[in-house]
């Protein structure tokens, strides 16, 4: 257990030291300023647009964090062969993977807390400017959406571990993670579209329908965690939805980390 935590702590510190963190924070800050500009162009539902902008900025910055900081933390060990040093220590490969993962999860949670502060500040400023345009606004829903977002990012990080466990360079894991993110966010709509294609006036072949259905079970359904639109309109999801979404996230994350451990334990290093 102690080894596990020390790996986690080192990973977390290493992540914080990464320069990319500054870049991501500046980007988030800029997008929050853009929030003030764009909200001022809206006639009626200013609150909705402000919440949209703030939540989307936080989510996008968090995504960049997972893609460019998170992946590097594991893949760098493999890229630079420092993994040999670690593996010669009295620590099992699974402990190493789980420890790394916990460190990155902690990094994501801390960064998302920071991004949430930015988001809340920008919403607060818009609210201060145009107080009459927030009729159905609730801070707790904004918090829930950000928490869901954090969970989705942790899931994505777990998936990137799975990819890193069998690929040889960090670039390939990055690409695979991006693909998984794109598929994960669109699979729900794609499945709905190919199963009822009349809406968009297309006619997909049966093979495509099958492929989409298989992908639906393989890839994480990230749109479950996306309640930004509902939150922007002050529509609260039911308690059971929250419970099942959190369960789904935890189960999928554990599954991905477990497979990553299994693959990584079997892996041979040249």
């Amino acid at each position, binding site marked *: 257990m102690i080894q596990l935590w020390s790996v986690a702590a080192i990973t977390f510190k290493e992540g914080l030291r990464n320069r990319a963190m500054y870049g991501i924070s500046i980007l988030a800050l800029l997008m929050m300023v853009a929030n003030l500009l764009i909200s001022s162009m809206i006639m009626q539902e200013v609150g909705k647009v402000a919440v*949209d902008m703030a939540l*989307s900025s936080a989510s*996008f910055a968090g995504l960049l964090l997972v893609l460019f900081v998170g992946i590097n933390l594991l893949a760098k060990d493999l890229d630079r062969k420092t993994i040999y040093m670690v593996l010669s220590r009295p620590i099992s490969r699974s402990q190493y993977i789980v420890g790394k993962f916990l460190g990155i999860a902690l990094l994501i949670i801390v960064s998302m807390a920071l991004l949430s502060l930015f988001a809340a500040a920008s919403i607060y400023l818009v609210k201060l400017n145009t107080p009459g345009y927030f009729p159905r606004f609730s801070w707790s829903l904004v918090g829930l959406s950000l928490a869901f977002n954090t969970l989705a990012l942790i899931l994505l990080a777990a998936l990137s571990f799975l990819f890193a466990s069998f690929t040889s360079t960090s670039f390939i894991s990055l690409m695979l993670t991006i693909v998984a993110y794109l598929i994960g*966010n*669109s699979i729900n709509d794609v499945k709905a*579209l190919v199963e009822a294609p009349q809406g968009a006036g297309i006619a997909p072949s049966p093979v495509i329908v099958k492929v989409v259905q298989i992908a639906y079970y393989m890839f994480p359904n990230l749109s479950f965690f996306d309640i930004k639109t509902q939150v*922007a309109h002050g529509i609260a999801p039911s308690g059971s939805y929250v419970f099942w979404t959190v369960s789904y996230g935890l189960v999928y994350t554990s599954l991905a980390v477990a497979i990553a451990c299994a693959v990584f334990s079997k892996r041979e290093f040249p």
Partner: protein
Amino acid sequence: MIIRRALPIILVLLLIPVHILTLSTVSNKRKTLHQGEDVAYVIPGPLLKITSLEYDGLASDFLFLKALVYYGGTLNRSERPRVKDWEWRWIYSTLQASTDLDPYFYDPYYFANAILTWDGNMVRETNSLLAKGSRYRDWDWMLPFFMGFNSFYFLHENGRASEYLMEGAKRPGGEALASLALRLAVKGNRTENAIIFLQEILKRTKDIATRKEYETRLEALQGIHVLEGAVNTFKDKYGKQPSELKELLAVGIISQIPEDPYGGEFYIDKDGSVKTTSDLRSMKKTKNN
């Protein structure tokens, strides 16, 4: 040595004006790029929902702003008609896509109702868009209210208008619509009802530019209302239709002909109803700015 050090600075100083020159030239040339009907395709909502990933709400906001900015750009045009048919259709499709991405978003519905009905002649399309909004925003009485007004005023379907208004009356804050619905059901004076409708809208409108537009409309309708009353008085007194408004002046029923705020002129149509040459659409360039 000094020259070598100064060279990059000189180069930067030279390149800055060149940069500004190329930027302004390209942005001017860009305006000559073909932007006609054939390139104004709007991707259908279900596909946009996929490509916008987790940023549906944001994409919806931007599509709405795109339509808004485009329409704003047409306000300064001098040609007639100011906005072409395909442009109205493009604005409609864009708002349709925006509300596909986020069906709860109020602004596209509000904007569509404000411009596509009066100016764009797309009343049925607007009502189907509003119906989508009304289905999702089931707490909002404004959308059924707009649908009611459109059905009553443009489509002359009083029965359906009452239904929409009754639907709106059931929602929080919309209780006052019930009496309007009743008025329509007993088939009152069309202009008078429209004035009551507009006064109700004005009470809820905060935005100054939109208020101005509705106030102009109200003023024009009030002018028509006064003249209609005068025509009726003339009929009662002389037992025949006046053929033109000057007759009303001549017999002293009215002291002056009200001015059409849209820049047109009021006249009496063959069927005896009062109309205006502007058809309640802006004729002056400055009016809508």
